[in-house]
């Protein structure tokens, strides 16, 4: 049940135009900043939003002329949208009932699905009596009980607290692995994407900016958004051998050997800061001014301006030693061996 789609939706001040494919059993994560068009994509696939142009083909069958109730696409909404007046059991039985399965049989199916997601003891509960994690699982069971040809998940874990999220994510991974059709997962959390998806599709401003498996994307981000997402400083410039010249003339020495348009990337931890111009000869060094200081795990993330705007990670001890605070002028260096260049 492979998905082939080109989605074009035009709205005032916003346009979505993307091509999307997914193979049976594959989990594709749509990743992107807020307002990029992730949810719009999902709604268009589900039929809740009319396409202005394009097509949706699932297994060779055109879906785009069909109403949502005819598409047989399971959707888990961000806030689950469990029907508040129905018990967990009746929520899950709702789909089969709509397809005229007799009530008793629909309930039996629902019971099975709820057991499968580990909620056998909660079938009689109303949605408001369920915890966030339980509600998420009921929503998943409800979508799967319709035996959909494709599954769409909109930020399935966003509404959960950190601890529940960890458990639920692991369980979700199991259920997705068991699902035979294609799954499209929308998220803005890279960790969800990396853990759950076989392939990532990065969307920005309604366009696909990068697609590939997790390793490729984390190693070679192609936009600022992706770079920030995976925690890299990213620039674009023109390479001549090991030297890359950025548009404003600043030159970085890299470990590579490329010609022409390239991306240059290095992690914040590779940036070292000094109170005065360092002796010796780090090839890349420049004066910089601290703009912000914030916690980042065990380290402090320092944002700097200067000829090369950059983020640096330093230890709290180093920060105290250097007196790092907004406005402080320092020297920044990065070793050429830490700087990777790849074709744009």
């Amino acid at each position: 049940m492979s998905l082939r789609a080109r989605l074009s939706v035009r709205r005032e001040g916003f346009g979505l135009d993307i091509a999307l494919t997914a193979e049976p059993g594959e989990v594709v994560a749509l990743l992107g900043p807020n307002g990029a068009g992730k949810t719009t994509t999902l709604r268009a696939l589900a039929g809740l939003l009319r396409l202005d142009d394009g097509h949706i083909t699932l297994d060779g069958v055109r879906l785009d002329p069909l109403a949502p109730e005819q598409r047989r696409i399971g959707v888990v909404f961000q806030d689950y949208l469990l029907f508040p007046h129905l018990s967990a059991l009746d929520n899950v039985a709702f789909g089969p009932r709509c397809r005229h399965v007799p009530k008793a049989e629909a309930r039996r199916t629902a019971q099975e699905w709820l057991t499968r997601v580990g909620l056998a003891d909660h079938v009689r509960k109303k949605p408001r009596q369920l915890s966030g994690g339980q509600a998420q699982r009921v929503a998943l069971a409800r979508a799967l009980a319709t035996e959909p040809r494709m599954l769409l998940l909109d930020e399935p874990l966003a509404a959960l607290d950190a601890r529940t999220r960890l458990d639920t994510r692991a369980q979700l991974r199991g259920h997705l692995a068991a699902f035979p059709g294609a799954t499209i997962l929308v998220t803005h959390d890279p960790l969800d994407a990396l853990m759950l998806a076989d392939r990532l599709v990065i969307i920005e401003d309604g366009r696909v900016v990068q697609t590939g498996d997790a390793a490729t994307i984390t190693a070679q981000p192609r936009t600022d958004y992706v770079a920030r997402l995976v925690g890299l400083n990213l620039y674009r410039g023109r390479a001549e051998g090991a030297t890359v010249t950025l548009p404003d003339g600043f030159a970085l020495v890299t470990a590579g050997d490329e010609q022409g348009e390239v991306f240059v990337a290095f992690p914040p931890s590779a940036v070292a800061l000094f109170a005065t111009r360092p002796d010796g000869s780090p090839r890349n060094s420049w004066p910089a001014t601290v703009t912000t200081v914030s916690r980042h795990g065990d380290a402090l993330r320092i944002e700097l301006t200067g000829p090369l705007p950059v983020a640096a990670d330093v230890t709290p001890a180093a920060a105290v030693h250097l007196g790092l605070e907004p406005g402080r002028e320092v020297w920044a260096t990065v070793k050429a061996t830490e700087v990777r260049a790849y074709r744009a």
Partner: protein
Amino acid sequence: MFLTLPLAGLLIRAPWSTLPERLTEPGILAALRLSLLTASLATVVCLILGVPLAWVLARLHFPGRRLVRALVTVPLVLPPVVGGVALLLVFGRRGLIGGWLDQTFGVSLPFTTAGVVVAEAFVAMPFLVIAVEGALRGSDARYEEAAATLGASRWTAFRRVTLPLIAPGVAAGAVLCWARALGEFGATITFAGNFPGRTQTMPLAVYLALEQDLDAAIVLSLVLLAVSVGILAALRDKWVAA
């Protein structure tokens, strides 16, 4: 205070000593029964016509929606007597539709109990439509989308998801609608006329009693009040508890 003082006035002025014999006068029971019957039927008519209309107003975007919404409130603004005349012009013997009905089927609405129901439904409908539309707007339309992705047609989604969710709003609207229909006077007397047992509802009986005998009018009003307050209180408890 402002709302209850007139009620207190009625209670104080009531002819308590002669109340038992007045209550057993034959006309009262007939008028009361007719009032309850027609108000309930009018409410049913309003539910059948008004809930779908409210859904259309709340959920569909179409040109002229504002105009339709404004038109729905016309019976609120229109003096009920004018409403009655308007109904006559449409459903009367010489009316646009009434003339055809009369000639084709020999059916004539004015001066019949059905005419009372039509007049009451006309005047009471906005209360239901406005209440239900408000409830629909307040309810999350995405539940209907969720139902659609589960394979529910629009009608199924409405019946099994939306309607249960807005049930309190529909109930409130129905109660308002019923209460308005019960108290309806102007459109009823104009469109359906006044004939005991057939079209003379309590408000008409009260009005005509007022022409002759203030005490009789007060007694009739008290009966109407007692019955309606009793029913409304009972319904309210039931719904709040549910």
